[in-house]
């Protein structure tokens, strides 16, 4: 399934998308309900912004800047702007927001949540006050009360064309799809289903609002099927509202993790002799996770969590269940009622903090080496012995790391024959090397094969 995030213009530069301008002529027909809500719709248009970002990428063996364009929507008087996590990330070095009044102001990243692909910015309010700039504030509608077939509008900056409005309907309220690409390796899409719309959504629409006829924000436009016509996806207001609150307060969304991968029970109820409309199948249990420690096994059926009955027969029922587990405070003890074969059992699981597979990234410029901290999740995924060490994400040709034979995907586990715990330690080693260059012996692992490489000044 090729569902792509709507990228900022980075993708355009790579030449993956070739777009004729002729396709982007906007034709806006006003229907009656739209006309009645004209003034509130105008207000919405005044709240949609264009976002220009420059951010650091560590992909190629050195820290480099890439730039991109996306959309956002102002959600409060004090300058909070909702956008996508794939438009503005913590690697951003410059964030410029163009208001509907065509004035540009700086913004800062307040919070980031790749799991739902949402980010929250704050406009530079001092600058806005000094320059006496004006803007409108959008209001949330209710994604829960949307009906398939209902008219919606997408507003944003497709391919850099600011304040583009397109019109369509809600095609499906609870679209589920299995994310394969992630946001530059970061997991996404676990905890929500999507609003599907046929309103034209293109690269650059990312982070802009999907609104009803009254101009109320019912979703944040995020993805499209590349190569298909009019298959766009938005994060529903219900998710966006919760995430926005958490990002404003804490800068992140804390979630609980227990290490279960749910499967769909679809057609298997009979096999497991379950009552109608009940149960969630466990496909996989992460080794060493709280669920594994509690004794939960793959192919168990979860009947209830803390007394709450589960119905996980169909794919679109899974994200809300994942979200239910994630929304418990970290360290909560959950009681799982399970069916295993013919018996039922009750197990207690203490939740951990949910962590991404992507660890901190860094560039060692003089070595021509970029690395990423090995996270617990990444170590589990690659079946590594421990989560110590760093993984190579890029090398620059003819620099010491590349000459030593380091390659993307190598896990550096030892330096000069002593264990490398993590990135901080390697930063120290790098500084020492910088002031006192001497050949370094690195032990790397790749698919459990150990190799040795020498970094020379």
């Amino acid at each position, binding site marked *: 399934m090729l569902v792509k995030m709507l990228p900022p213009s980075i993708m355009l530069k790579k030449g993956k998308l070739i777009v004729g301008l002729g396709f982007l002529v906007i034709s806006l027909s006003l229907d009656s309900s739209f006309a009645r809500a004209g003034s509130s719709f105008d207000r919405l248009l005044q709240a949609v912004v264009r976002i220009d970002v420059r951010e650091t990428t560590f992909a190629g063996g050195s820290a480099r800047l890439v730039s991109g364009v996306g959309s956002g929507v102002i959600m409060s008087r004090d300058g909070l702007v909702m956008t996508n996590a794939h438009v503005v990330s913590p690697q951003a070095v410059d964030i410029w927001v163009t208001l509907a009044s065509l004035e540009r102001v700086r913004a800062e990243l307040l919070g980031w949540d790749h799991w739902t692909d949402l980010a929250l910015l704050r406009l530079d309010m001092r600058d806005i006050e000094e320059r006496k700039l004006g803007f409108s504030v959008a209001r949330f509608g209710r994604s829960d009360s949307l009906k398939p077939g209902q008219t919606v509008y997408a507003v944003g900056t497709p391919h850099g064309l600011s304040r583009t409005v397109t019109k369509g309907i809600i095609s499906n309220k609870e679209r589920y799809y299995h994310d394969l690409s992630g946001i530059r390796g970061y997991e996404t899409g676990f905890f929500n289903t999507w609003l599907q719309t046929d309103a034209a959504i293109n690269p650059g629409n990312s982070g802009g609002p999907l609104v009803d006829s009254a101009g109320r924000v019912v979703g944040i436009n995020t993805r499209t099927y590349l190569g298909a016509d009019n298959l766009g996806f938005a994060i529903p207001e219900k998710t966006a509202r919760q995430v926005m609150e958490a990002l404003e307060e804490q800068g992140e969304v804390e979630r609980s993790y227990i290490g279960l*991968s749910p499967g769909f029970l679809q*057609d*298997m109820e009979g096999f497991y002799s379950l009552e109608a409309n009940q149960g969630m199948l466990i*496909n996989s249990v*992460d080794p060493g996770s709280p669920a594994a420690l509690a004794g939960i096994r*793959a192919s168990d059926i979860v009947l209830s969590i803390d007394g709450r009955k589960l119905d996980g027969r169909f794919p679109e029922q899974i994200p809300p269940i994942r979200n239910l587990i994630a929304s418990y405070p970290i360290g909560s003890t959950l009681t799982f009622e399970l069916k295993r074969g013919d018996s039922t059992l009750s197990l207690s699981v203490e939740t951990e903090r949910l962590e991404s597979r992507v660890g901190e990234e860094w560039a060692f410029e003089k070595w021509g080496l970029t690395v990423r901290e090995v996270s617990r999740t990444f170590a*589990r995924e690659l079946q590594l012995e421990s989560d110590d060490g760093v993984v190579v994400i890029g090398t620059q040709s003819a620099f010491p790391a590349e000459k030593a034979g380091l390659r993307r995907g190598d896990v550096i586990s030892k330096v000069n024959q002593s264990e490398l715990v993590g990135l901080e330690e390697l930063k120290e080693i790098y500084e020492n090397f910088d002031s006192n260059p001497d050949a370094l012996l690195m032990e790397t692992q790749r698919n*459990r094969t150990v190799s040795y490489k*020498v970094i020379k000044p």
Partner: protein
Amino acid sequence: MTKRIIQRIVAWGYVSLCISKSFSAPAVDELFDERSASILVVEFFVETEIDRRPTSVNGIVIDSNGVIQLSASAVPSWVPVDKLKEFKVYRLGESDSHDATYLGSDREHGWHYVQAEEAIRDKLKPITDYPLVELKTGQPLWGIGVAMKDMDFAPYFMRAEVSTIQKLPETVGFATSEITSPGSLLFANDGSLAGWGSSALNMERYLTIEGRRYQAYLRKPDQTTAFYVASELVKSLGNIPESPDINDMTWLGVVGLQTIDDEVAELMGLGDQAAISISQILKGSPAAKAGLVERDMVLSVDGKPLKRYTPRRVVVADFEQQIAGKTIGDSMLLGISRGGKLMEIEVALEQSPKPVRQADRKYFEDTGLTIREFVVYDNVSLKLDLELDEIPGVIVSFVKPNSNAHTGGSQNGDLIKEIDGVAIRDFDQAVSIMEELESNDSKNDFVMLVARGAETSVLRITLD
């Protein structure tokens, strides 16, 4: 391994000068006709669950009993012997085939042996009848090319000069241009035996299509510049196993061997000593019993330091061949460096656990799935670290396209851990569960728990 190394060598093997100096060997046409009787084309097919894949390779006659030697890559190593069907041989230039029998493979070099039926043996000429030649750089050679089947595998004349000779660790020669067909022979001007054609090398080429440049590796299927040097080859001819399916491989139980490169060796204080690092040691293996540990560096075998080869990774190939050359029960004295400390460890080599090709397997037609016995070597590919006798399930070795198993999500390589909630502990148990499922008319579906990488999945397979 060797093939990959040969491919690297090609760059300068190929660059060598093409001197088209004409020579006229006395009676070369007679030599050509006679020596063509030492080469045969062997045909067979590999039978799978749903199809048959024909194979045709060249081989050489090595004795008066009609035994024909084929290269190691002539028969895919994972194919069970009972799936190799209908061996036939053709004399060059003839369209009639003759029956032949597969005899098995040599454990040290992997060469395969086939025996031609008695009726044609007296028309074959063993290579042991020919004198050998010591090759020199620039020496003129001629070889016998073998045409395609529609030309009745007709032999044709080729010639070139010796470009270079390398130890990889087999002694491999390279000619200035294509000199023979893979699996066929080449000779010196006086008719003495010079070499046996190995598979052709990948030639790096750039293709320009509509202004765009592509890097491509091209390989001729029917002609080669590389050959095994005969004077070395004859020392190890004819190690025919007692039976085609015998497991006489010796086993040390070390995985992920890597040659230590010069700079690393120097930093580790090993000087200019060739060394090999061990990434992983299988539980319960001879290496584990002898006390070898992961990250040990091997420096010597039976008191002799490891030989330095160029390129360095040949050191590993040489070490592996030394293990393969030993007999079950032999011991091996390994000189080891462990964290800079030198020590000697004696390992008693054991019989190798069952190789994948010998693992039991069974195809279930209604389901469209073949299951295969779990073998110790699966620990490596599945990144498991189990005790020698621990069996975590059975392996899916074939899924028929659009079968019930395929629709249910089965994939080649899946480790089946449970079937219908029953933990799989051995192959026979899995077979009887599957047989029961397929024969039970009241059963419409079943559930399998499979492991794939670090994750598991519950699959529902329907039966109809």
